[in-house]
């Protein structure tokens, strides 16, 4: 339409003063209410603040699609979105910015283009890459980060990055993080003010890792259909198809695993191996529905609007949501931990069995709720106990793996644990039990 092209090209945004479209939103931006901070100022200043704020959305999946829509309809005009994924057909039951014809395309690019088309005047910049591909200079341009991720690892990375970026001398360096997550009918939303309130790492034990099934169970004494599937996944594939990289999105590969698992299950009289279960186990599928994403994403966007405009107080600081049985929310202040390895300044106590070998101790770090580190290297003051890299150091420190913890570390001594996935080492004080 003619009027459209005129709007977007010739008239600079700031002069476009017709706010009729934003009448509903402006009600809460133009004046304060009974619950707003009495010091807060409302009106054009607030409106121009939200219009000029650069805001980063991490993830353009189930939560991300909703968040982009919500932010665009909350008056944000300069939104950036980062996601490395491409669209899969199983996304279509909730990621409403995508159509069947979009399968295979970049999520970030597709989502950005759709919202730009639908909501006039909003600019959405997509980045089709991993968050780890960007550095501090990239993240420092934003005033606020909203994350809708499905990976704990990515959350820990961005959390550590934004905590690390805080410079006490420069208030602009503090970027609030609003994080959402869902599983089935449940979810949570949280507001993190890096170095001021509890960070993601402080709250890590809210997400207890799934206990891995011991290898010997898979290899010799399977009892559950899952054990047969994991056996096919971890052991049988290596044995029969070594050299072929397993692609859990390839139906031929999944079918192969399914049939191997089925045969094994029959051998042990185990029932319940299905194609769907095979897929669920090997891809670690978490059930996801549109409605839960809508709830959590809207809660995150609502907090973003409140933080950026002060139109009402923002959440302090964590909301758990459950819709399985009735609807239940629990909103509370999650306390910041002084011994948080990311935002605290004290080393954290860790109870350890002194008879454990260093190798078993390292393995236990991936299962402990408070560490969840997959490939850690361990040092103590002036000495490397075990280093994953470089190869020469790995070789030198490898003999330590067989030694008992008590031979290597004194009771009460501090160790530093570094993991390739995270930028800063974690500090623990070993306490023998």
């Amino acid at each position, binding site marked *: 339409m003619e009027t459209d092209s005129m709007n977007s090209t010739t008239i600079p945004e700031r002069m476009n003063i017709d706010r009729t479209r934003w009448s509903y939103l402006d009600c809460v931006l133009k004046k304060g209410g009974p619950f707003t901070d009495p010091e807060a100022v409302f009106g054009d200043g607030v409106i121009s603040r939200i219009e000029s704020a650069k805001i980063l959305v991490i993830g353009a999946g189930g939560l991300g699609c909703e968040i982009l*829509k919500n932010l665009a309809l909350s008056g944000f005009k300069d939104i950036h979105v980062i996601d490395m994924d491409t669209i899969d057909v199983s996304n279509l039951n909730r990621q409403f910015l995508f159509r069947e014809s979009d399968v295979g395309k970049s999520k970030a690019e597709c989502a950005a283009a759709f919202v730009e088309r639908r909501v006039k005047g909003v600019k959405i910049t997509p980045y089709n890459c991993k968050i780890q591909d960007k550095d501090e200079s990239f993240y420092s341009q934003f005033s606020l980060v909203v994350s809708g991720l499905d990976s704990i690892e990515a959350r820990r990375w961005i959390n550590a990055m934004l905590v690390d970026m805080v410079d006490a001398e420069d208030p602009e360096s503090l970027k609030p993080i609003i994080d959402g997550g869902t599983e089935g009918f449940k979810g949570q939303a949280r507001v993190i003010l890096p170095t001021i309130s509890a960070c993601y790492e402080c709250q890590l034990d809210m997400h207890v890792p799934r206990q891995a099934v011991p290898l010997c169970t898979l290899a010799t004494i399977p009892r559950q259909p899952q054990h047969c599937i994991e056996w096919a996944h971890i052991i049988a594939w290596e044995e029969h198809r070594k050299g072929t990289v397993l692609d859990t999105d390839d139906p031929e590969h999944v079918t192969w695993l399914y049939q191997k698992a089925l045969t094994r299950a029959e051998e042990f009289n185990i029932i319940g191996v299905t194609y769907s279960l095979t897929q669920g186990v090997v891809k670690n599928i978490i059930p996801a529905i549109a409605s*839960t994403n809508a709830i959590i994403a809207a809660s995150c966007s609502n907090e973003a609007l409140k933080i950026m405009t002060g139109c009402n107080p923002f959440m302090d600081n964590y909301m758990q949501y459950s819709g399985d049985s009735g609807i239940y929310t629990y909103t509370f202040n999650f306390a910041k931990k002084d011994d948080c390895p990311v935002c605290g300044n004290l080393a954290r106590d860790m109870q350890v069995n002194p008879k454990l070998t260093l190798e078993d101790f390292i393995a236990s770090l991936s299962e402990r709720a408070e560490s969840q580190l997959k490939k850690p290297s361990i040092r103590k003051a002036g000495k490397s106990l075990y280093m994953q890299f470089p190869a020469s150091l790995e070789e030198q420190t490898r003999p330590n793996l067989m030694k008992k913890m008590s031979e290597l570390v004194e009771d009460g001594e501090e160790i530093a644990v570094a993991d390739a996935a995270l930028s800063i080492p974690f500090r623990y004080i070993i306490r023998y039990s």
Partner: protein
Amino acid sequence: MAPPIATTPPVLQGPSAKEKKYDRQLRLWGANGQQALESSHILLLNSGAGVVGVETLKNLVLPGTGTFTIVDEAVVCEEDLGVNFFLEQSSLGKSRGEECCRLLLELNPEVKGFHIQKTIADFVKRSDLSQYTLIILVAPVGSLDVASEVSQIAWDLRQPLIYVHSVGFYSHTSVQLPPSFPIVDTHPDPPSTQDLRLLQPWSELLAYAKTQTADLEAFSDHDHGHVPWILLLLHYLEKWKESHNGEFSVRDDKKAFREFVGSHARTDNAEGGEENYDEALTAANRALTLPTIPSDLKSLLLEEECQIPRNSSANFWLIVNAISTFIKKHSLLPLPGTVPDMKSQSKDYIALQSLYRQKSQQDISEVTSNVRALEHALNRHIPIPDAEISAFCKNAAFVKLIHGRKLIINPLKHGWNDNSITTIIEHTTTMNFVSGKPSLFPILIALYGFDSAIAAAASVRPESNNLLAAASASPGFFTLMETYIRDVFGKLDSTSEDLDEALQHTLNIAREIQRSGPGELHNISSLTGGMIAQEVIKIITKQYVPVDNCLVFDGIESASAVYRL
């Protein structure tokens, strides 16, 4: 055991296109739930800015709800474009229902959608509402009489109705279910569903445990470390009883019993302990409880529909009656038959598992024959499917019955149903015990005040097609809300200080409502649309447990509360 037979592999039966698209939700509600969704027809009676209803539909169209119909009298105006995502520039001046319908249908080619441009009053007068599976009514309807009429019709038709407000930072969702709404597939948390009967083992289980653990002390370290903890506990319970006059007291002996079990774990082996004993000690607390009949089920057994089954009774009630007969005979529920994973050899675990399965099957057969006898006595010709009886038996402890109640459209006129004034005062004044924040109930009172003020404004300017604009333009709008709120508190007829504080808080909420337009904020409507869609899915699939019956959300505190009114 038959050796694996070498045959040509079966034809690859991967998931269908539909199963692929809906994979992430089928893992929650399964093919049955999906089927129920696909055959349903949702009616949205839209009003106001109309965002919350459309956001709800988005969350229902995506998972494949069969059909929806939007009734909306409005024409798209510029303000709509800043708050409703399912409208575009070219929608201006067109029917809002039609445009939303068109853009919603883009989300899922398998869904059908219709739109009707009429006022709610007009539509309700001339339509047969019985063709819809569920109705969503969005406030402010303008006329409280029309809202009451919709509620009455749905009530008479036994049709679920959801009534919703989304105003500024607040929302309210009321669910009007039929007077009797049973749910079998409630999806309880897995750990809570374990019923292993260790304190009341049936004879085969006991005999099996005895033979398997007869020589326990003589077992090799490997075998000793692989005895399933269920058998360990059964074994040591017998031993315990031998030295305690044949008694084990759940109340007094648990701690000492666990120490007794723990003392038999071997520690002189390579691992310095035994995993199966560790598992036994962890499981002991939960596993060593006497099975009880849960209170929800007990009250079901007392319902008239259970006690006096009729030819026309729903399947549900016949099965409850059959289970009641089972309970009378055994003082126990049918065994669910599931066994958690535990350290053990494959064959031992499978043997134990099949023992539980056999017992469960045996119980189900007994309940089934009770059902069949009842069907015969009642002269019913279509037998209840075996699968339905079996599913009921396995989940008997978690079956739920909700007694739906009629909506409250205007508490000043129709009161708070069965709630006493004291309950309402309690709702109004009780602080949230976790957060120490004020109750959310005043939000509901303020929203009723908002409805009443809108209705008053509408009666003055009936020709206006934008009620909200008319209302906010009306200078006395806040006074109308205030009068209503003061009347409600007057009815509560209490002189307590708490109540006066609550009144002041409620008036502040009314000020906040006034400040917001009163209109919708996209985030709050989107969030509320998510919650309503969850409720709709739970009601239609008859899975999980819906809200009973009034939910309030506060977008300032980011908190919610449920009241039964």
